[in-house]
């Protein structure tokens, strides 16, 4: 029973994701982009944030075509949990596991800020235990979700503001089954009182329990 955290060249938040899992009493293992299989005993997958391949071409595009992603797709198709955070969200959209695409922020600049998220869909495995809004930071340059919100399972929305210019204030979406979710905010940066919020734990707990 272990959470696999996928690492690409240019991944930045893999260690923080591993620490978040450990903090909740789980075990985590890094998976290398060039491997063809997830580590033995993988029960859930995190695609962490960062700038895989320098965000060149389109964020997430090159990483989504790496060998490990076939194993991630298989894992997802078998009903396993997959959480993509920021660059991981971009990777999952590019891989076709999640609807839509992430476009440059309306400000055309990087934005690093604590935001408040409302949970629009409490029915996914990730959000079952969420009660009330979540305070989690965003930090990205290409985080404006683009897609058809009526045909996507929107899980999280920015409360009050729309800091990146996403369609319909979308901050996170899931696949139809709900076992694959991506979000631009960084829950692994909100799992410790030292960091100012522990609201990110809600999204990590189901991975540890899986």
């Amino acid at each position, binding site marked *: 029973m272990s959470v696999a955290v996928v690492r690409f060249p240019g991944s930045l938040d893999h260690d923080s994701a591993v620490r978040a899992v450990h903090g909740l009493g789980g075990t985590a293992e890094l998976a290398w982009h060039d491997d063809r299989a997830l580590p033995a005993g993988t029960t859930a997958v995190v695609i962490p944030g960062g700038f895989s391949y320098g965000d060149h071409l389109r964020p997430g595009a090159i990483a989504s075509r790496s060998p490990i992603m076939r194993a991630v797709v298989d894992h997802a198709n078998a009903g396993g949990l997959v959480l993509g955070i920021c660059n991981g969200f971009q990777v999952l959209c590019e891989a076709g596991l999640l609807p839509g695409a992430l476009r*440059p922020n309306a400000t055309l600049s990087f934005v690093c800020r604590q935001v408040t998220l409302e949970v629009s869909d409490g029915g996914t495995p990730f959000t079952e235990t969420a009660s009330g809004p979540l305070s989690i930071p965003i930090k990205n340059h290409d985080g*404006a979700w683009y897609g058809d919100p009526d045909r996507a399972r929107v899980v999280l929305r920015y409360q009050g503001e729309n800091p990146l210019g996403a369609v319909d204030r979308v901050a996170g979406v899931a696949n139809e089954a709900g076992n694959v979710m991506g979000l631009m905010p960084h829950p692994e940066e909100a799992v410790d009182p030292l960091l100012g919020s522990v609201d990110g734990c809600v999204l990590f707990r189901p991975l540890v329990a899986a």
Partner: protein
Amino acid sequence: MTRIVVTVMPREGVLDPQGQTVHGALERLGFDGVGDVRIGRRIELELEGSNPEEAAREMCRRLLANPLIEDFDIQVEGT
């Protein structure tokens, strides 16, 4: 070696914030009569092989463009 130019542009109807910002910046610089501005990518490739155009098309399908938000175009520029 064949020189191929791949052009990837935001699809019609997809918001192009970069284009909009450049439009605004041009107006602020005092340029009048600027209509639509759209910004995309130009990728210059040197390809070996018998059918470089087809290879480039395959590259676009598999990596260079995202059909959800982008259209691509391929020009063979010669060898």
